[in-house]
């Protein structure tokens, strides 16, 4: 228990250092408010904004000003959207979550299952097919694959839909069921692409984990006991193979809020990934920092989760 408390407390400096580095890097780009001077209506506000966000002081002071406000829910003002950052991010979050969660679940589930199947049926036709699929997924860039999918399944055969996933999505459709179907038509293609391209790592990882375990002495012991092969695999091999995979699962937590800026951009999906790309172009530091801080938080929590889960699945590891 003490270990756990210590571990949680350690997250605080990690969080501060990571956000500080991000903040300083973005500060190198230059003054984000400079562009506002072009607009005669806003020119008079520039000095005031600079003062509010600490742009008249050094970057470190500015960082502490930012983090103080951030923790209080004041995420700043988006230059791009001309609205509060918090509002902008919260609008985009559900879209990214719906893609991210479904994609992460599918990619890990299919990835692990396929990897284990490959390992059990080593060097079979299915194993080679899985390997080919994995290498296709891992080497195919999403900007090409996405555009191809867009061309064939949206333009040529209008099976799916693309486009702005804005709040009040399709106000013309009143029926909730139809609305869900339409929502699915927008998300199915990017989710499919992200799953196909993202599961490769899981397949390779779980395949090699399973192969390693299958050569262990205790598997031979289990067979020598007279257990049927299915029990040997499910009870003795799988549980051990899952130990390293659990870590991978926890570390893929950040993916649920959309690590898919390119795919989102191709399919014009207004999620956090596209927001990030747009904000980069507009030098919208407050949006960038908010987006990045969310990701940083998930990475840190994922790491903690990996440590805890490790102790849960492996009796040799204790949280002492």
């Amino acid at each position, binding site marked *: 228990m003490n270990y756990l408390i210590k571990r949680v407390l350690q997250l605080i400096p990690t969080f501060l250092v990571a956000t500080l580095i991000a903040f300083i890097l973005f500060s190198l780009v230059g003054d984000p408010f400079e562009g506002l001077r072009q607009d005669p209506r806003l020119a008079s506000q520039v000095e005031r904004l600079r003062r509010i966000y600490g742009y008249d002081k050094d970057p470190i002071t500015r960082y502490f000003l930012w983090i103080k406000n951030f923790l209080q829910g004041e995420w700043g003002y988006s230059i791009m959207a001309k609205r509060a950052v918090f509002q902008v991010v919260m609008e985009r979050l559900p879209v990214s979550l719906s893609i991210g969660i479904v994609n992460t679940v599918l990619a890990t589930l299919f990835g692990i299952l396929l990897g284990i199947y490959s390992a059990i049926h080593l060097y079979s036709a299915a194993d080679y097919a899985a390997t080919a699929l994995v290498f296709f997924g891992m080497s195919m860039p999403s900007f090409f694959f996405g555009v191809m999918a867009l061309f064939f399944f949206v333009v040529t055969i209008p099976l799916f839909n693309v486009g702005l996933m804005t709040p009040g999505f399709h106000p013309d459709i009143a029926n909730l069921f139809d609305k869900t179907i339409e929502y699915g038509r927008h998300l199915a293609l990017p989710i499919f692409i992200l799953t196909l391209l993202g599961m490769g790592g899981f397949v390779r990882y779980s395949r090699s984990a399973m192969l390693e375990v299958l050569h262990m*002495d205790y598997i031979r*012991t289990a067979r*020598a006991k007279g257990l049927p092969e299915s029990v040997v695999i499910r009870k003795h091999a799988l549980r051990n193979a899952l130990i390293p995979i659990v870590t991978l699962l926890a570390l893929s937590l950040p993916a649920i809020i959309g690590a898919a800026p390119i795919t989102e951009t191709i399919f014009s999906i207004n999620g956090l990934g596209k927001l990030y790309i747009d904000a980069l172009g507009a030098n919208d530091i407050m949006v960038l920092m908010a987006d990045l801080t969310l990701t940083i938080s998930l990475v840190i929590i994922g790491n903690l989760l990996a440590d805890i889960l490790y102790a849960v699945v492996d009796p040799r590891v204790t949280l002492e």
Partner: protein
Amino acid sequence: MEKDNILEIKNLHVTFYTEDGIVRALQGVEYEVKHNETLGVVGESGCGKSVTSLTIMRLLPKPQAKVEEGQILFRDKETGQEINLLELPEEKMRHVRGNRISMIFQEPMTALNPVYTVGDQIMEAILIHNPETTRQEARKKAIEMLKLVGIPAAEKRVDDYPHQMSGGMRQRVMIAMALSTNPDILIADEPTTALDVTIQAQILDLINRLQEQLGMSIILITHNLGVVAQNADRIAVMYLGRIVEYAPVREIFHDPKHPYTQGLLQSVPRLDRGGLKEPLPGISGNLPSPYNPPPGCKFHPRCPYVMDRCREEEPSAVEISPGHTVRCWLHVKGEKSNE
């Protein structure tokens, strides 16, 4: 099959088809195990002693290993029937494996599954072969077995994970697991090699005591002649996939016929002969590569008595006295006069 035999291996040939080439791991191995007796199988690493036992258990790595020829006859104690294990359907073989014939391995540190308690793993063996047993009964039996193999505070340690135990303790757990189904044969594949010398003696004593107590046959595989001297009734000496000498334990130690057996015995350090000053003679040369074995007698490149014939022709096994066979041209009588 003779009446007092429980297991007979006949003319067993096993080949491994690997990426690096073909290895004829077993070539005409024959031995028998009698009721409540211990057979010691001795030889250097790679001579095929473990392959033989894995063949009995039908646990050879697939698809590399192939049984080319031979029979493994096993007598079912209950029905008195003779079964050829190599022809048994897998489903029936599962009821032999771990139930009628159990096996313990060299590496107690890795032979137990790290994520299940030792109790779970013993209970699993009991439950799979006795479907009518309840979990409580199985647990009771597991604790009883742990006590039998001399684990203190067995009621508590039954819930331990393997990593909480020492190597010797784990080997005791393995023995408890193997014997929990009351098998007819226990195959012990180098059970003490990975253990400290003091623990080795304890484990061997334990196996001996349990054999008397429970009544079973043992195949004791080892590269250590000292281990079989005290424990075995008969000994098979293996070299490169063949049994080169097969005899009762007294004859092996007092009247070894094969030059390889003689060499093995000379390389055992003894306090009563030569003392500490004299160097051990040992066997010259190295074990030949199994991918490319020498022609003729496989031992001839290392044999002190090598003759021309040894380089060309491989000797077959001859019985020089009842129950004592040897594969060596030195002992092929009648043909010597032809030279």
